[in-house]
């Protein structure tokens, strides 16, 4: 190590927070994916732990339930030897007195280096980043972004397909209310993929075309062109709000079935951010079939979150 490696692509991470993929450059996204590949090896060891973040404290600050994401972040932090503490709060109880910012400041007073924040309101992690010293990782803010989910989807696609150039990726379902969709859109477009947004008009706003995506209402028309389909979860309360007439009708138009997969490319890759509704977005045989990368996504999620925690734990030169 006397001679610093003359890296083929010298890159230095400079951000203090990870708030969304919209703000990241292609180089930054690639650096996270490359580093996540390196961390992927750690998960395969018998001793699944490295000392990188010894003595650091990571708080999971969840104002909305999400056992999966929280568990993935916890495990990622633990594999880096950080201490992890969960803090779950009910937003409605918080709104009565103590504000969300007060809550975060209280937690920071206990000692905290990284806050992993899940909140139902878009922009809540941004707001927090202006009021606390810790690094903030957005673990999902309303319908805005879910950057680590976007990154793990990108990693899964890159592992299966090698690169993004020339790739056509469809995001399927409730785009309007999906943070996963937005993070996917930013990441995929930056890395050079073509993105199709597919779902009923009430859930796929036309204005998304201005981001550079194609908007389609009929899955059967676009599926043969797709290399990847990312199947978003449908929330049943949307049906109650009149955004689509019935779950059955939705499934008829948009469920990934064996028949549909048969008409798609042979190497179609199917992602689903989970938790999935079997028999609504995907049939069980598709969810568990050869095209499905659902479990790879979970594995990659851990590696991506380790990479993000690793980068954000470095000293921010701007903060000095």
């Amino acid at each position, binding site marked *: 190590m006397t001679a610093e490696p003359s890296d083929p692509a010298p890159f230095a991470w400079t951000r203090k927070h990870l708030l969304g993929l919209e703000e990241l450059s292609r180089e930054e996204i690639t650096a996270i994916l490359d580093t996540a590949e390196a961390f992927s090896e750690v998960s395969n060891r018998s001793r699944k732990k490295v000392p990188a973040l010894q003595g650091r404290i990571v708080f999971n600050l969840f104002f909305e339930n999400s056992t999966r994401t929280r568990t993935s972040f916890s495990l990622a932090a633990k594999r880096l030897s950080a201490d992890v503490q969960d803090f779950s709060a009910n937003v409605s109880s918080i709104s009565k007195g103590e504000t969300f*910012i007060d809550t975060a400041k209280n937690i920071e007073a206990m000692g905290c280096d990284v806050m992993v924040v899940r909140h139902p*309101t878009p922009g809540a992690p941004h*707001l927090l980043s202006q009021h606390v010293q810790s690094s903030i990782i957005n673990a999902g803010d309303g319908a*805005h972004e879910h950057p680590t989910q976007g990154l793990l989807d990108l990693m899964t696609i890159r592992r299966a397909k090698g690169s993004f150039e020339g790739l056509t990726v469809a995001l399927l379902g409730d785009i309007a209310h999906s943070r996963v969709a937005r993070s996917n859109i930013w990441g995929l477009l930056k890395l050079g993929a073509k993105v199709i947004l597919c779902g009923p008009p009430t859930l796929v706003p036309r*204005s998304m075309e201005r*981001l550079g995506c194609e908007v389609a209402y009929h899955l059967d028309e676009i599926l043969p062109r797709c290399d990847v389909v990312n199947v978003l979860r449908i929330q049943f309360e949307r049906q109650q709000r009149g955004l689509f007439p019935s779950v059955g009708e939705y499934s008829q138009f948009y469920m990934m079935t064996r028949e549909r997969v048969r008409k798609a490319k042979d190497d179609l890759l199917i992602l689903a951010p989970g938790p999935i509704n079997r028999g609504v977005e995907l049939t069980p045989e598709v969810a568990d079939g050869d095209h499905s990368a659902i479990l790879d996504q979970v594995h990659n999620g851990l590696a991506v979150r380790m990479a993000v925690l690793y980068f954000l734990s470095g000293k921010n030169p701007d903060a000095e």
Partner: protein
Amino acid sequence: MPTIQITGGRVIDPSRDLDATGDVWIRDGKIAPDGGGEPADTVVDARGLIVAPGLIDVHVHLREPGQEEDETIATGAAAALAGGVTTVACMPNTLPPIDTQAAAEFVVLQGQRARQANVYPVGCVSKGREGKEMATLGQLVAGGAVAFTDDGAPVSNAGLMRRALEYSKMFNLVIMQHCQVMELTDGGVMNEGFESTRLGLGGMPAAAEDIMVARDIRLAEITGGRLHVQHISTARAVELVREGKKRGIRVTAEACPHHFSLTDDRLRTFDSNFKMNPPLRTAEDVAAVIEGLKDDTIEILCTDHAPHAREKKMRELDHAPFGIVGLETLLPITVTHLIEPGHLTWPQAIRKLTINAANLLNLPRKGTLRPGADADVTVIDPALAWTVEAARLRSKSKNTPYDGWRVRGRAHTVIVGGEIRYALGGADDVA
């Protein structure tokens, strides 16, 4: 009472189509034709400054009674003076709302006690602002109300709106309507469009405003009542008001600085100081609002001054209340965004801030420098460049989207009822 001579200024009094260098005399709380041969007790040197009738803001929220942590009538009326505003009409969405004579009298009384800007109450259209039964409009008038509105929310019930427009004719007062179809804005925090889609935030479509404006213009037409469209913000709504006027319907409209100086992409910072209702719209809407101001479709400039204490406003966007303070930035944003770019001349802008507002509220002795009128005068330094600093605002709340903006134009001396109540850099000007 001491006499005042304001000397050497550019006197702009649109009520008399006056724009000339000259003196304004004040005696016994009224505008006087001249000094009557006597030297004035106080002389205000207005050379290089503009002398205008005291500015009138037809749309402010002073939060008293009920939310004094946000603003009081005294602090709001003081903020008005610092902004060059001598008269405010305050909205009735207080706790409890101003829906009775006693409640209106309370506002008048608190305004008199404060001795800052003149404060007039606007009464509710419906009892309890519930949108069901008409409030006692006549008793509200007896208590001092100068107009009616359920602002903060629209009068959604078309039947009630129709009756209110009809009934209010007996007082010749306006129904001010917050035009919004609530069924279309449920869960919305910003304008619906590309930006809301991009940010994942709930949208409020422009159509929600347009549809209500269209409905109410039609109701004004069939009733002959006076409809005033509050804080107009969409291109189509401006067009509808223009058409209505052309057809001779009694409809007026007001626009606020944020709707001609800011667009919805500001929400990208997720800063709740850009959250208001109606929301910031698109560049096309801003252009249409400016066009409406130019051709007098929109005859009034006002603020929708909506103070919120920091702990309420500095929250997640879904939980932060709508609204921003505006009294102290009304004048400079008008100067930098309407006058300097050449959209309006000084006399045109001052007309929208004075005589047109006085006419809207039926205040014959306000908004003019005609001899015998109330001696409310705003002396403006049109060239003064300064930086808006939220922390230095006089309003109790600091929720401005203009913090740090470099602007031009500021109140220099403000006279209310023949009394100098504010002087820039004076003892009463902490800033």
